């Protein structure tokens, strides 16, 4: 099956998103748009200190307010629901939806109010008096590892959530024992050059446009719970809600209506969701909770916050011999669903796109008095690629070698695929040099270098940065997440009028599945897109699913849909065959007709076959009536998209302000179903990468543990005027692991952009002896480097 633009086919075309008219006209349906009869509202009282022991909670004033139906403290809720679930194999401390005894980060809920009105609920939550005996807070992970000045969970000595998880050469993957360091030691002894650098991928706030929200409706009459949630994965949410509430999955329905972005932050089921469900069950009434923006900053998961001590060994010709990363992940105060797993993805990325004989990645995860981290767009891959690509650029500078040439010398070659890295990852396909050459040509790399040198001669601080990324995508197989599985489900029904209703277990929250999946089915059945409805985000309508994250929707969800469609096509051929007095195998779909291959126009109309399938007189032998099929599909391995990003920056000598002047990108995500949507994903991803590089950093006060950047007045996500026009292109290297040949593109932009921009900034300041700058590239930090001080 080819996925390039072919005349008469929709796959490969820049089809505009069908979702947009309703969303931009305000006709979407978000959780907060819904009002149910009798619905009550929740508000949470939250800790305003980072660490402490709850001495008392006085709820009397709140309870006395007319319209306040119920007030519950964490201790009372702990008797109603158990601690929250974790889907990782590491030991985790109890994490209650509302803390019963001790607070460990600013914003942690300590009590909940149920009231007839949202404003009243907020007033009542404010009226609750919490007496907390403050303990010292610790927000620096390296300090936390000493156990001083605070141990956050008594059972986790020195705040070590995951004390040490080594991976790579010389490590037994089953026991995580370091068995043989000789190859590692030998590589560093043989090296002509060793690069060593401490590098931070700083903490970020995901900031989906729509904050979190939940409506829970327990119906006492039939013991059924329906939850409307801003989730990215309603089926996982159903599994976790049922488990925590002690209900069967058949009693729980989770609906994700229109969801305004997630970036990974809406994978988790949060404490507020469990509390809403438990309170609805207790009261027999629907309850709603909508997060406000302050809560979103403080209490929706954060991303990244991984520190790397990088060592890279190479020959004088630039051949990389070994890469070593010692990682310290600051995971915040608790483990959430995937918290502990995300930093392990950093280790998976350690080889990047290079043929490196020896790799070693030692990971330590540390508790601090901050909001827990979890998956944020890219989730582990931006960190890993950033650390490696910074090291590669430092090596290029040290060797005075063109950074493109250095990378070229180390690329894994096309004939080496499938390629197994020294860390045991299996890459599906790749042709890196083609993407590099395309990017260099599109950018005019040699001219850019000449222009940079000319600008430098005038005293201007112009810099160029290049990065090359790959990423692990298209999650599963299930072995990668045994707690829930990583397959996908789809169903396709052709109704009796020839219209198609398909369901998918992936759950779009901005990805445009209603468009791309309809494009695919329109081609398969050769009918108009308008005749096709894609249903997602409702466990009551979608029989199975895992969800949308890890750039897996097109790869896994798309393939499942294709397989379900193919089953329906087979069945339609069986119905059409007697109508045409031909064999099913001779029939194909074209122009709204089913007929002999190549002469479909002489066959029968698609809709007529559909009608016959529902009134089959006579019923063809060994055939059930109706046209509805489903498919589960699980990939055998990960897909590995890749690409090359080139940045040009200029730094203002007086102020340290950095301007991103050019951004040239070449992405290879295999075959492309909808180039417009793929471009949108890349644009958004790059913008978030620009944010991490230049404007975003979640900062906690070292002493008080307060989140200093707790609003959009302090935390800057990039605006349009901060961004240049992106100059984008593609190469196409299909994945052999799925019939669509797709690889996934949802996160790529965040991965390659940060090293590209930081490499450019370092290049711009190379005249000042600068070798590395930690993100974010604050103007003051750059100004100090220019002044010759410390960054």
């Amino acid at each position, binding site marked *: 099956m080819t996925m390039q633009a072919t005349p008469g086919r929709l796959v490969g075309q820049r089809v505009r998103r069908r979702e947009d008219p309703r969303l931009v006209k305000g006709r979407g349906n978000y959780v907060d748009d819904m009002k149910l009869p009798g619905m009550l509202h929740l508000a949470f009282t939250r800790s305003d200190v980072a660490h402490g022991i709850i001495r008392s909670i006085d709820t009397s004033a709140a309870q006395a307010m007319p319209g306040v139906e119920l007030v519950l403290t964490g201790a009372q809720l702990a008797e109603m629901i158990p601690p929250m679930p974790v889907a990782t194999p590491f030991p985790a401390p109890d994490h209650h939806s509302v803390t019963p005894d001790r607070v460990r980060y600013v914003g942690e809920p300590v009590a909940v109010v149920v009231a007839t009105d*949202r*404003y009243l609920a907020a007033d009542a939550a404010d009226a609750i008096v919490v007496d907390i005996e403050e303990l010292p807070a610790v927000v620096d992970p390296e300090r936390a590892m000493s156990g001083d000045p605070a141990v956050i969970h008594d059972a986790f000595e020195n705040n070590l959530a995951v004390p040490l998880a080594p991976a790579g050469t010389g490590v037994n993957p089953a026991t995580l024992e370091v068995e043989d360091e000789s190859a590692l030691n030998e590589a560093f002894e043989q090296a002509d050059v060793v690069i060593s650098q401490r590098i931070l991928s700083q903490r970020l706030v995901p900031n989906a446009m729509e904050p979190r929200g939940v409506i829970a409706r327990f119906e006492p009459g039939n013991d059924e719970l329906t939850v409307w949630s801003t989730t990215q994965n309603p089926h996982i949410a159903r599994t976790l809600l049922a488990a925590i509430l002690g209900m069967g999955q058949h009693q729980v329905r989770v609906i994700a209506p229109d969801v305004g972005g997630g970036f990974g932050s809406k994978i988790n089921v949060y404490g507020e969701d469990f509390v809403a469900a438990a309170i609805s069950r207790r009261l027999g009434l629907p309850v709603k909770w909508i997060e406000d923006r302050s809560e979103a900053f403080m209490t929706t998961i954060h991303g990244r916050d991984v520190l790397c001590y990088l060592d890279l060994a190479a020959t004088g010709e630039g051949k990389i011999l070994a890469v070593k990363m010692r990682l310290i992940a600051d995971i915040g105060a608790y483990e959430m669903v995937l918290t502990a797993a995300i930093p392990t993805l950093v280790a998976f990325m350690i080889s990047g796109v290079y043929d490196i004989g020896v790799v070693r990645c030692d990971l330590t995860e540390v508790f601090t008095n901050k909001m827990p981290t979890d998956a944020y767009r890219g989730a582990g891959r931006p960190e890993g690629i950033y650390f490696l690509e910074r090291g590669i650029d430092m090596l290029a500078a040290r060797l005075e070698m063109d950074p493109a040439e250095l990378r070229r010398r180390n690329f894994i070659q096309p004939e080496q695929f499938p390629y197994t890295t020294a860390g045991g990852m299996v890459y599906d396909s790749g042709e890196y040099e083609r993407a590099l050459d395309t990017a260099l040509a599109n950018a005019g790399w040699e001219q850019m270098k000449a222009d940079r040198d000319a600008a430098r001669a005038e005293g201007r601080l112009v810099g160029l940065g290049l990065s090359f990324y790959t990423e692990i995508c298209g999650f599963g197989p299930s072995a990668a997440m045994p707690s829930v599985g990583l397959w996908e489900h789809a169903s396709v029904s052709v109704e009796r009028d020839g219209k198609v209703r398909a369901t998918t277990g992936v759950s779009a929250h901005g990805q445009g599945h209603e468009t791309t999946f309809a494009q695919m089915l329109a081609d398969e059945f050769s009918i108009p897109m308008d005749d096709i409805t894609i249903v997602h985000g409702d466990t009551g309508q979608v029989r199975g699913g895992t969800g949308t994250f890890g750039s897996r929707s097109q790869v896994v969800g798309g393939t499942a849909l294709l397989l379900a469609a193919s089953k329906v096509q087979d069945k339609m051929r069986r119905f059409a065959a007697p109508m045409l007095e031909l064999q099913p195998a001779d029939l194909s779909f074209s122009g709204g007709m089913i007929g002999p291959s190549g002469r479909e126009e002489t066959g029968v109309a698609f809709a007529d076959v559909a009608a016959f399938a529902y009134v089959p007189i006579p019923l063809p032998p060994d055939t059930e009536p109706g046209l509805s099929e489903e498919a589960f599909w699980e990939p055998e391995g990960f897909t590995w998209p890749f690409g090359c990003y080139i940045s040009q920056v200029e730094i203002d000598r007086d102020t340290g302000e950095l301007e991103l002047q050019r951004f040239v990108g070449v992405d290879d995500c295999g075959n492309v179903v909808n180039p417009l949507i793929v471009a949108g994903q890349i644009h958004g991803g790059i913008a978030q990468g620009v944010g991490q590089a230049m404007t975003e950093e979640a900062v906690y006060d070292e002493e008080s543990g307060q989140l200093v950047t707790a609003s*959009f007045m*302090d935390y*800057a996500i990039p605006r349009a005027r901060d961004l240049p026009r992106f100059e984008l292109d593609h190469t196409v290297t299909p994945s052999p692991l799925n019939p669509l040949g797709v690889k996934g593109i949802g996160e790529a932009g965040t991965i390659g952009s940060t090293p590209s921009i930081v490499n450019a900034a370092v290049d711009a300041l190379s005249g000042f002896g600068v070798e590395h700058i930690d993100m974010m590239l604050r*103007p003051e930090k750059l*100004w*100090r480097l220019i002044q010759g001080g410390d960054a």
Partner: protein
Amino acid sequence: MIPSAFEYRRAGSVDEAIALKREAGSAARFIAGGHSLIPLMKLRLSEPSVLIDIGRVPGLSGVSEDGGRISIGALTTHADLESDPLLLAVAPIVAEAAGEIGDQQVRNRGTIGGSLAHADPAADLPAVVVALDAAIHIAGADGPRAVAASDFFRGLFEVDLGEDELITAVSFDRPSRAAYAKLRHPASHFAIVGVAAALTVEEGVCTGARVAVTGASTHARRLSAVEEALTGSRLDDDSIAQASAAASELGDVNADLAGSEEYRRAMTRAFTGRAIAAAASR
């Protein structure tokens, strides 16, 4: 992000607004565009029990000129200032500074009177009105009065405005050469440092200078040492650099994530130079 309960009153005239305020007392606040007050209310950092909306009081909006004196009504929005043909022609510094405020939505709602009355230490327009030697026109129960902009701003969120008073207009003489230069906070777009310079130049020599800074300290204030250094000097790169150097001699300077004290002093110097150079080239 959920404000406390409050009562809402709408005033139809300045006199009615003042009467409503006197009646409601100190827990009441005037509101116009609301872009300073409402964010504070959402965070419950401000919990007025009564809001008196002056946003629709007639006659308080627009820009006019009378005999070389320019007058701007207090309810004129930043967006209106930004695109006002008269300002663009005769006092482009005001339009420029207004155009640098926040983003388009903020500029569509925020008003000059609100910005001056609120007196955020990093707001743009206070520096501009101080540099232009503007008069702030104030209405109150005891009748109207006017105060010089440089006397109006007194400290952190502290201005010369009584409990029951409100700003009705700002007026200033048509400036000769004036410009505003600003280092923008990446998130809020407030001024990390903003400098407004208004110069009088005769045959290349600066015969008068008013330079004011915002963002650097508690409130917008004049940089007298810079003004003195400029006055009488022939304007060129050297003299501008020399005069700007005097900008470092600020008193206490703000420090936060966006800029340490040292950085803000350096940026005050740099943007003083930029504002003077831009003004000189007008």
